[in-house]
């Protein structure tokens, strides 16, 4: 997208519940980009306000689950007078194919943006076939 474009606000999308959370509060779906290169699949998610230590990434069966918690203790003593966006935890799950090297998954957080790198398994890498 060209950089000269004006940015607009996208309302946060609330997480559709697949299972009930036992703690009260609303969860939101972090906006995500997914792109693929020759060697890996990259998932980028925006989770503003989430600390590095408050992110939980778990791989269970074929589902990669990401949960980012905001520290609402920071809001203690603050009385809202004007609000435009909702504050809440973030959660999103991604179903992985067998073609991902699960031991090689890495994560990085910068400026509230979480980048997950999912390297492709060897058998899924593109190969050049030499003609005999």
């Amino acid at each position, binding site marked *: 997208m060209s950089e000269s474009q004006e940015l*607009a*606000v996208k309302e946060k999308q609330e997480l559709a519940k697949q299972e009930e959370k036992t703690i009260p509060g*609303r969860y939101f779906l972090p906006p995500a980009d997914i792109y693929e*290169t020759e060697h890996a699949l990259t998932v980028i998610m925006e989770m*503003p306000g989430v600390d590095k230590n408050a992110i939980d990434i778990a791989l269970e069966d074929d589902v990669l689950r990401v949960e980012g918690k905001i520290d609402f*203790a920071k809001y203690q003593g*603050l009385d809202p007078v004007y609000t*435009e966006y909702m504050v809440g935890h973030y959660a999103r799950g991604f179903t992985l194919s067998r073609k991902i090297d699960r031991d090689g998954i890495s994560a990085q957080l910068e*400026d*509230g943006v979480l980048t997950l790198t999912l390297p492709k398994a060897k058998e899924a890498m593109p190969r050049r076939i030499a003609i005999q």
Partner: protein
Amino acid sequence: MALFPSPFSSLLGLQQALDAFRTSAWLQASPSGSGSYPPINIFRKNDEFVLLAEVPGISKSDLDVQVKGRTIRVSGTKVVKYEDKSSLHRRERQSGRFDRSITLPIEIDPERVKAECHDGLLVLSLPQAEQDRPRSIKIG
């Protein structure tokens, strides 16, 4: 556990408090324009105001904050980069320029404004200007 816990002791409490102000008339008379980027929440903390804006993926060097009188201007550019030779499967993040001014119903002391940006959250502490503070009048 206190019998009457603070409303902020749960996430739900915070969200309910935020929800209650979604229709606040606090900035209504100003041309701030809700729906402009970045989304802003304003809180009162004792004597000062705290402005929070969600700016994920924007580095400090790409953000510009100006304060004059009652008006705050937040502008910058958000860049979303992909690696070369990549194919895109999903794109939900947005990129582009933004420039937003909001006018508060209080005078701000620009000398004492503090700005912080971490984890994609811009935090501005906005102390009220001394000349704008209410004064107690002794009844003679």
